[in-house]
């Protein structure tokens, strides 16, 4: 699982079966110092509450679909939590 920042939303009216009602977000993966790392990906919003600007954590691969209501769907990244704080040991919370 990785930290990521929500940077946008994706609207698609034609989708594969099982993806109806699933909200898609553009997320930028981050390193643990919250710096962007790698390319943005489209992730399904499994918490249904994440929005642009928010710090979240994402799960990749097959496990992403497990987070959704229908689990046998073609999804490879999902937002599974909204981050309140990342507390570094010996450091200040961010």
């Amino acid at each position, binding site marked *: *699982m*990785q*930290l990521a920042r929500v940077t946008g939303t994706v609207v698609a009216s034609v989708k594969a079966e099982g993806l109806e009602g699933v909200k898609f977000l553009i997320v930028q993966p981050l*390193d*643990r110092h919250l710096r962007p790392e790698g390319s943005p990906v489209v992730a399904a919003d*499994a*918490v249904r*509450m994440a929005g642009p600007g928010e710090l979240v*954590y994402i*799960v*990749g*691969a*097959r*496990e*992403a*679909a*497990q*987070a959704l209501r229908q*689990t046998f769907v073609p999804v490879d990244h*999902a937002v*599974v*939590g*909204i*981050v*309140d*704080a*990342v*507390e*570094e*040991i*010996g*450091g200040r*919370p961010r």
Partner: protein
Amino acid sequence: MKVGRVVGTVVSTINAPVFDGRRLLVCDLLDAAGKPDGTYTIAVDTVGAGAGEAVLIVDEGNSARQVVGLATAPIRAIVVGIVDELTVDGEHVLAEG
């Protein structure tokens, strides 16, 4: 499995229900010399690992679901052990405690 070091925790209130009551650890992954290799993962704690400890991480969903005992859990990385000692090519790379 990978060897990592616990460097932080993630605090989250809004999340997939399976994460309720579970500790999320930010772990730097270590190379064969026991040094951070520049990558990290967020792993669910199952052994009570604490700050600064070297840990054994499984980054594979099926195993993770088995450990948490939930066939549909959207979890991929979990901490399954606390490393006491790591020896590579006869040399002590990590000696904890």
